[in-house]
């Protein structure tokens, strides 16, 4: 079991010292998945044979000292939103049941190139639409810290798989908090890079102006290692940023002495969980003790972020999901009178309730007569939200907030009213609308042993400072790695 709880950097050291082989590490993780995943249900597909083949390859690479990286031979998992060549990719939707991508997403290709071993594909909310992973068409993932509670979402399977020690790290996507929120709820580190930092090629699209891939890891050093492997310009993604990727590890231990940490009053609100607030305030004190200067800042349009998000994201989704029509891939309902009938029957039976609801909302708000009042208005308010951050970052280097207003909630608790579920993302959504980087780092537990997350947001393309601040907190808080009893 020891092997399973190692960080990437600790495992990588053991691999380089030949204390353990990648095949051994991969077998240990596959055994762990076999032993506990019927309780957690973090995986939709486990690719054991392929993983062992990749592990043998990685061991060879290390033996020959051929292009070895810190990730060579490290077993990870990926959210089922990333296309994986020859391996079923469904986005947790019935409409993509049986879809076998003929190519790898850039993220997966780069991780394979670095030598990472892919153990399988993680469960998620269908098409990444949700905050609890309850919207998966196939299974519900349990929070490893409390099996009757949700792991968060939409990358719930990824977060749970890292927390449950079923992999060394995982990759998810974040459109409105889908990496940071489940990371907070499962007690792991989740990083959302600047929009455009990581290629979206081969990542199944939900809301194209907001979607961004990022890692789930046991600590911030691992986050830097994963990010370095994933990031960088890709000619196959027209929104990919052509900027050099810094060596995140070289600055990560620099500490926060003199660093200005903005504290926005709009993120400490009436109605948030008292234990969450207390833990986050305690974390801020630790940062201050480490030499950071806490600066009060204001992000006055925060209260409009959820409304903007649910108009912008659904509008983009209604357009992106038009491609699922039963023609080129995925499900087709055959007993149709004609083409139009086939489209409608296929989409009606292939999409789940939340996906249909969002397609409807997006279609409605883009339709003739409503475009100005909804989509255009929301895009204008998005500018105000982006400007809030630009103004705040004139007075500080990073911004620290709670990641979520509450710890993990129970299954079914927020299913009946979509709006209540949407509001669980209030602290994570603005970051996507502004396109800036953000991380969630574990900052303690409630009395009932539910994890709590501290969110640190940074300036565009300044992942380095975000990681540095997160690491300073992690190190000072003495975060010995904690794993749930399963």
């Amino acid at each position, binding site marked *: 079991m020891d092997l399973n709880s190692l960080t990437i950097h600790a495992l990588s050291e053991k691999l380089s010292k030949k204390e353990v082989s990648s095949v051994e590490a991969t077998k240990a993780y596959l055994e762990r998945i076999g032993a506990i995943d019927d309780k957690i249900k973090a995986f939709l597909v486990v690719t054991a044979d392929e993983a062992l083949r990749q592990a043998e390859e990685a061991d060879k690479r290390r033996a020959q000292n051929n292009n070895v990286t810190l990730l060579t031979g490290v077993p990870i998992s990926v959210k089922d939103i990333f296309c994986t060549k020859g391996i079923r990719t469904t986005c947790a939707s019935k409409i993509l049941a049986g879809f076998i991508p003929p190519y790898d997403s850039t993220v997966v290709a780069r991780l394979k190139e670095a030598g990472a071993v892919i153990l399988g594909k993680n469960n998620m909310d269908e098409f990444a639409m949700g905050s609890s992973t309850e919207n998966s068409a196939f299974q519900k993932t349990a929070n490893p810290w409390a099996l009757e509670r949700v792991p968060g979402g939409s990358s719930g399977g990824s977060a749970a798989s890292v927390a449950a020690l079923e992999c060394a790290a995982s990759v998810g996507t974040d459109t409105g908090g889908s990496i940071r929120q489940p990371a907070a709820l499962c007690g792991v580190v989740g990083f959302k890079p600047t929009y455009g930092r990581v290629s979206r090629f081969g990542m199944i699209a939900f809301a194209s102006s907001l979607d961004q891939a990022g890692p789930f890891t046991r600590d911030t050093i691992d986050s830097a290692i994963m990010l370095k492997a994933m990031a960088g310009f890709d*000619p196959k993604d027209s929104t990919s940023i052509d900027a050099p990727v810094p060596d995140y590890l070289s600055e990560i231990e620099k500490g926060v002495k003199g660093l200005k940490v903005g504290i926005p009053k709009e993120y400490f609100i009436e109605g948030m969980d008292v234990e969450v607030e207390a833990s986050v305030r305690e974390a801020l004190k630790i940062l201050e003790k480490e030499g950071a200067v806490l600066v009060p800042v204001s992000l006055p349009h925060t209260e409009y972020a959820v409304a903007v998000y649910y108009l912008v994201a659904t509008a983009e989704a209604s357009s992106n999901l*038009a491609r699922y029509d039963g023609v080129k891939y995925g499900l087709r309902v055959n007993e149709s009178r004609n083409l139009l009938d086939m489209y409608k029957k296929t989409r009606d039976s292939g*999409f789940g309730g939340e996906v249909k609801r969002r397609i409807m909302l997006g*279609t409605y708000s883009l339709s003739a007569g409503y475009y100005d009042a909804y989509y255009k208005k929301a895009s204008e*308010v998005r500018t105000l939200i982006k400007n809030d951050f630009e103004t705040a970052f004139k007075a500080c280097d990073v911004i620290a907030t709670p990641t979520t207003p509450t710890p993990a909630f129970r299954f079914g608790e927020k299913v009946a009213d979509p709006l209540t579920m949407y509001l669980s993302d209030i602290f994570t959504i603005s970051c996507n609308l502004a396109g800036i980087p953000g991380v969630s780092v574990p900052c303690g537990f409630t009395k009932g042993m539910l994890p709590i997350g501290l969110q640190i947001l940074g300036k565009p393309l300044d992942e380095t400072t975000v990681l540095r601040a997160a690491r300073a907190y992690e190190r000072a808080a003495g975060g010995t790695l904690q794993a749930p009893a399963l």
Partner: protein
Amino acid sequence: MSITKKDVLHAADLARLELTAEEQDLYTGQLSRILDYVEKLSELDTTGVAPTTYTVPLKTVLRADESRPSLPHEEALSNAPDFGRDCFKVPKIIE
């Protein structure tokens, strides 16, 4: 701005969704509540504010006009529910 069942049916048709009677009622109620909530955006005066659709500067990306390998037809067709003669097959379009 409240949404009627007629609006829901219109949006469903545009979105190529066939909703059951039950879904029509459910979505009419739920979408109304969500639209009431987003109505709060009208509190803000956005006169003269340029919309943000992307947070990175977008420019038209052109590549050199050179031929290069692409997905072979048989692979592109490999997930098709129905195909033949190197084409996707669909039900009759014109009666």
